[in-house]
């Protein structure tokens, strides 16, 4: 099998495993510690993924992460103002594309 197809299969199986595992392991009752993690981890992981997405941003060489910073600010401000994730994502992405294509 071609390596790329193998990687797609691995990603599909690992993702499905994560989704199915709790249903298989905790069929009857869920331990309180696991319930606690289920409550606090999702927002922590989102914070982790924000950093993950920006991990390769070069902050000490031009353009010093300025396009990322401005686009991220646009997303935060729009989300606080309008509470529409789609609007925030679309506008933030357009801001970023315009900045790196035209300004930097």
């Amino acid at each position, binding site marked *: 099998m071609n390596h790329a197809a193998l990687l*797609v*299969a691995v990603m*599909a199986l690992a993702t499905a495993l994560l989704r*199915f*595992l*709790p249903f298989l392991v905790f069929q009857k009752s869920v331990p309180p510690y696991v319930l606690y*993690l289920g409550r606090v981890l999702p927002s922590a992981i989102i914070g982790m993924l*924000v950093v993950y997405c920006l991990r390769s941003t070069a902050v000490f060489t031009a353009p010093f992460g300025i396009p990322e910073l401005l686009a991220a600010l646009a*997303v935060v401000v729009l989300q606080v103002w309008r509470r529409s994730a789609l609007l925030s994502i679309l506008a933030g992405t357009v801001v970023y594309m315009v900045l*790196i294509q035209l300004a930097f």
Partner: protein
Amino acid sequence: MKTNVIRHAFAASLPVMAGYLVLGFGFGILMQDAGYGVLWAFAMSLLIYAGSMQYVGVGLLSGGASVVATAVTTVMVNARHLFYSISMIERYQDAGRCKPYLIFALTDETYSLLCDGSVPDGVDANRYRLLVSAFNQSYWVLGSVLGSLLGPVLPFSTRGIEFSMTALFIASFTEQWLTADDHIPALTGLLGTLLCLLIFGADGFLIPAMLLITAVLTLLRGRLRSGKEAGV
């Protein structure tokens, strides 16, 4: 199949439609740019169906990652799905034949639509949840295919479109910040990961970050629990 339940499910899925079409479109373009055509984008969106993982997966495919690295990365990026599933165990208990697909299709967005458990009056809950889940995946698959096919012929440069994933997480982070009573979990995730990035560098910080976050939140358990007991 009653049209009533289809209409309710479709209406509920509308907020996700545009987001999935756009993010799927971006994924299709990135795949095309990495040298993987429409069948690859279609297969990944059908079989993996995890937005951020698929964006990360483009890099794994084009970089020729190993099977082990791919498996570990998938587990790290998608670990949050364990917790979505945990909080849906009771709700999906009597889902019958629909259950396997409901579990498979439990993405961030589908979870956010179904996690409060409300179902329109006079509508079969399982059928409604199944349809919402399936509508959402159809938008994702359609967006991926369209991006793959139309991306190369767009009359403008798509350079920078990958920021849509970053924007997705920043928007979710902001929204959770606005609705959460306690900001400690979100700050632990953000600052803990930043610390690990500074210490371990961009290639190896994800696993230490997961461990650090879990450890810190475990230590804070008594403190955080006193606020509001599990809403799950």
